[in-house]
């Protein structure tokens, strides 16, 4: 007779809510919210409340699988690991280490991501390691890095409550980060002004003082418009600009031509509304900017992010509590996976692989030579596989077959590999293409740390034993490394791994398990440092904040005669990403069992389609069959499809065109059309 509650972190979004896993006689029986947690404060969203359910799903992978003549057969761990090691060695020798690509996972712990990138670099000898941050916030990492010197959310989630003004753009916060939206709603109820800039009507826009609906992909233009108004009316923070920034003159000159009239002609935002909203933001003492994929997922993603940074610096809204530029990270540990170096160009703590001194430090610590050339990104790896240059991929806890743009191309790429290994908790769409599948333990079955969107490193605690023969990802990586002949993967527990991360990573220097009970926000350089609730206090990480002079550029693909609609994609409250976990949760499936395409009533009438009619949505990449949802949530000319559903996968349609620097694909806008399905007469 045993009953306990284990405090851990919700496995879904980057808010990083604390929750208890209820364990009765070693069995997970539910979730309880945690009142003492700094963000969740005893509350959870519907996904968090049901985060126990997928753990025991009957489709959990419980044994290693190997594909024989197109069907999977169970094998022993020993045999599976031996085969993988043999293949690794074969491709390294026959081709080169760079013929192998590794995808790490924003669903795995910091320790696991660190080990995975160490494995790729120190054992395989390639920098070809990346993860889905490429698809969500690589433009934030690059853009905010260039503007401020650090690519992360500048302030803390709870600080939002005390803002005087909150500008939310490209973030449907209520549905994607429900517990972050809580603080926006609280600020609003205390009298803060709320500005929402989003083509769609979202739950927050109902409560907003301003809802500006821009044409998708025109964010640089409206932000330049805001700045034009602010400079024209002398509302900028002159002292801040003078003391803390550089590049102002050039930026001011560029935005000179973005008059409200000109911006209206590009974005469709009425000039009066733009002027009023810009004044409101600029006149507020503490104004925070909150953004997410609507800003980042464009071929101009880096420009959009830098525009946000421009606006905050222009009004002196950086380096103070309840202000800042706040990208909300989508996955529970996408911040951490970036922090610990699961990226092709940096080691942990964003330390460049191309920098000789830094490379020497890691070579000394890991006792091996390391490759100097940055590796391939997610998108480039798929392209290399398609071109036959990449021979083998090792994918941990990612599902590019649903999450990446132009799935048809992804499938051809993955099928073209000589060898594909997938390590996951379910047989995902990607795992189905694999030659070998390894069963991993879920978040409830292992210990480690996650880093939430506001840079808070928090403890993930093991509540139950791994299901079946599944194993924690960190143990699998260590087993592989040992079999590859490395002696540098001897860890007794994830705590040892964190100690190694701390020793090599200045921003994590003060992290240690005995300090993480209430979480610690990086940068935390030493064991006596209390962590950093908000960044750039007296000085930007890069010294001076850098303004960027940016011209508006059109998205890669615009609606035209053939494809007259503007397709945008996103998530909804009741599901998460590729649905691997939420579509195995009964209540979430009952709420929203299947995907749909949102279409404005005017467009629906033009096309003659009815509500809930099964139609074809087509783009230059492909077509899907999907039912309609006629709603004014989307403006005329724009359609929206949630990307969770494999049966009508939005990413069959999306454009793989990428930002030239961050390589993030343009998920948020492409050209599409809707076709009615011809029905045979009875």
């Amino acid at each position, binding site marked *: 007779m045993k009953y306990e509650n*284990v405090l851990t972190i919700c496995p879904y979004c980057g808010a990083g809510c604390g929750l208890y896993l209820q364990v009765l006689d070693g069995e997970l029986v539910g979730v309880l919210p945690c009142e003492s947690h700094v963000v969740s404060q005893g509350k959870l969203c*519907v996904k968090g409340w049901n985060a*126990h359910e997928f753990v025991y799903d009957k489709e959990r992978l419980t044994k290693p699988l190997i594909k024989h003549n197109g069907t999977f057969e169970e094998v022993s761990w020993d045999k599976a690991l031996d085969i993988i090691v043999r293949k690794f060695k074969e491709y390294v020798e026959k081709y080169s280490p760079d013929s192998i690509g590794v995808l790490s996972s924003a669903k795995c712990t910091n320790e696991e991501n660190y080990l995975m990138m160490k494995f790729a670099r120190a054992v395989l000898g390639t920098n070809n390691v990346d993860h889905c941050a490429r698809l969500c916030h690589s433009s934030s990492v690059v853009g905010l890095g260039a503007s401020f010197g650090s690519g992360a959310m500048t302030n803390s989630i709870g600080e939002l409550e005390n803002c005087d003004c909150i500008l939310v753009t490209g973030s449907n916060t209520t549905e994607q980060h429900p517990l972050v939206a809580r603080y926006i709603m609280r600020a609003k109820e205390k009298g803060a002004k709320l500005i929402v800039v989003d083509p769609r009507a979202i739950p927050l826009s109902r409560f907003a003082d301003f809802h500006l609906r821009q044409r998708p992909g025109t964010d640089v233009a409206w932000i330049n418009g805001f700045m034009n108004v602010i400079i024209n009316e002398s509302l900028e923070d002159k002292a801040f600009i003078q003391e803390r920034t550089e590049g102002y003159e050039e930026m001011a000159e560029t935005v000179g031509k973005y008059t409200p009239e000109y911006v209206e002609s590009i974005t469709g935002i009425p000039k009066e509304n733009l002027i009023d909203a810009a004044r409101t933001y600029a006149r507020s003492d503490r104004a925070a900017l909150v953004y997410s994929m609507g800003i980042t997922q464009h071929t101009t993603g880096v420009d959009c992010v830098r525009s946000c940074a421009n606006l905050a610096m222009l009004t002196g809204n950086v380096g103070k509590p309840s202000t800042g530029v706040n990208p909300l990270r989508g996955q529970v540990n996408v911040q951490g996976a970036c922090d610990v170096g699961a990226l092709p160009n940096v080691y942990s703590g964003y330390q460049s692989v191309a920098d000789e001194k830094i490379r020497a430090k890691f070579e000394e610590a890991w006792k091996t030579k390391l490759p100097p050339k940055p590796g391939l990104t997610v998108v480039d790896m798929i392209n290399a596989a398609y071109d036959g240059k990449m021979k083998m991929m090792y994918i941990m806890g990612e599902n590019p077959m649903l999450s990446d743009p132009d799935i048809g191309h992804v499938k051809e790429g993955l099928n073209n590999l000589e060898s594909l290994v997938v390590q996951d908790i379910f047989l995902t769409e990607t795992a189905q293409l694999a030659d070998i599948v390894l069963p991993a333990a879920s978040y409830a079955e292992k210990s480690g740390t996650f880093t939430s969107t506001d840079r808070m490193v928090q403890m993930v605690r093991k509540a139950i034993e791994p299901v079946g023969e599944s194993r924690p990802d960190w143990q699998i990586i260590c087993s592989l490394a040992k079999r590859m002949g490395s002696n540098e993967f001897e860890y007794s527990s994830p705590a040892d791994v964190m100690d190694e991360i701390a020793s090599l990573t200045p921003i994590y220097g003060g992290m240690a398990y005995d300090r993480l009970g209430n979480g610690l926000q990086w940068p935390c350089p030493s064991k006596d440092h209390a962590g950093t609730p908000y960044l750039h206090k007296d000085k930007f990480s890069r010294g001076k904040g850098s303004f960027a002079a940016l011209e508006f550029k059109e998205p890669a693909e615009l609606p035209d005669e053939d494809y007259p609609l503007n397709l945008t994609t996103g998530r909804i409250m009741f599901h998460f990403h590729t649905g691997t976990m939420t579509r195995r949760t009964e209540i979430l499936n*009952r*709420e929203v069992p299947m995907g749909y395409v949102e279409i404005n009533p005017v467009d629906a009438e033009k096309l003659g389609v009815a509500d809930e009619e099964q139609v074809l949505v087509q783009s230059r990449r492909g077509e899907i069959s999907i039912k309609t949802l006629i709603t004014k949530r989307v403006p005329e000319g724009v359609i929206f499809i949630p990307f969770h559903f494999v049966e009508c996968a939005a990413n069959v349609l999306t454009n793989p065109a990428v930002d030239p620097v961050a390589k993030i694909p343009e998920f948020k806008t492409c050209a599409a059309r809707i076709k009615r399905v011809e029905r045979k007469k009875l």
Partner: protein
Amino acid sequence: MIEETRRLAEKWLESGKVDGIVGLRENDGYVAPYLFTETGELESLVVSSQIRRTFCTSKSQRFKKNVLYLLQQKYPKAKIGVVARGCEEKAIIELAKRNQLDLERITILAVACTREEAIDCRCPTPYPTRIDVGKRVEGVSSDVDVEALQKKSLQERFSFWKHELSKCIKCYGCRNVCPSCFCEDCKMELELWAKMGQLPPEIPMFHFIRWYHVADRCIECGACEKACPVDIPLLTILKLLRRDIKEMFDYEAGLDAKQEAPLLTTLDETPLKE
């Protein structure tokens, strides 16, 4: 107070009065419900005013049943103790009336709340029927929020609730934490009453279902309000409902284990049987 609680729990475990006792444990820097079965563990037993007070009678989301119920089902012979405050005892009483717990096999280590705790919870009766630890203090007799709302016109009250409910993000948290609700087939999940997949859920139907279902068993613990991510003042409406039930049926949930719940009786007033 905590020393007294630990001493009593130790005595009960040692004497075999209980086989285990559910209480709050402080472990690894956090406090959470735990079943103490060894006296050696009791130094980590705490009585925390930081943690929601109906925690020890919380439900399992997987089975939609109270954890005490699950323990009683799984261990039919076990004598289970629980460190309970006034609200937790009230919850246990209401569950027992509905065959969700066997009072005979539950021993309550009854803790009285302090005046500060009572004010924080807006609780009129911050004590169990019998007190093992602590002293009975005065509860909060008149609720400021309820009074303020009652002074408003019908129109004002209507728009107040419409605004509050329009914030709802359909987390089901109010239902999930409610110690008094236990239906495995929850009517809130029925398309019949409130369309699925909508945000906010249909106003006011989605919330009405729950409020009416708990009308005669709500023990005004306020767990629902504390679990609400958008701060809907749920305790206020439930206090009003409780007031109506008292006026109409002279019934107050949780106070007397022997008093029949009014909505449980049949039309000819004979008690409801399973």
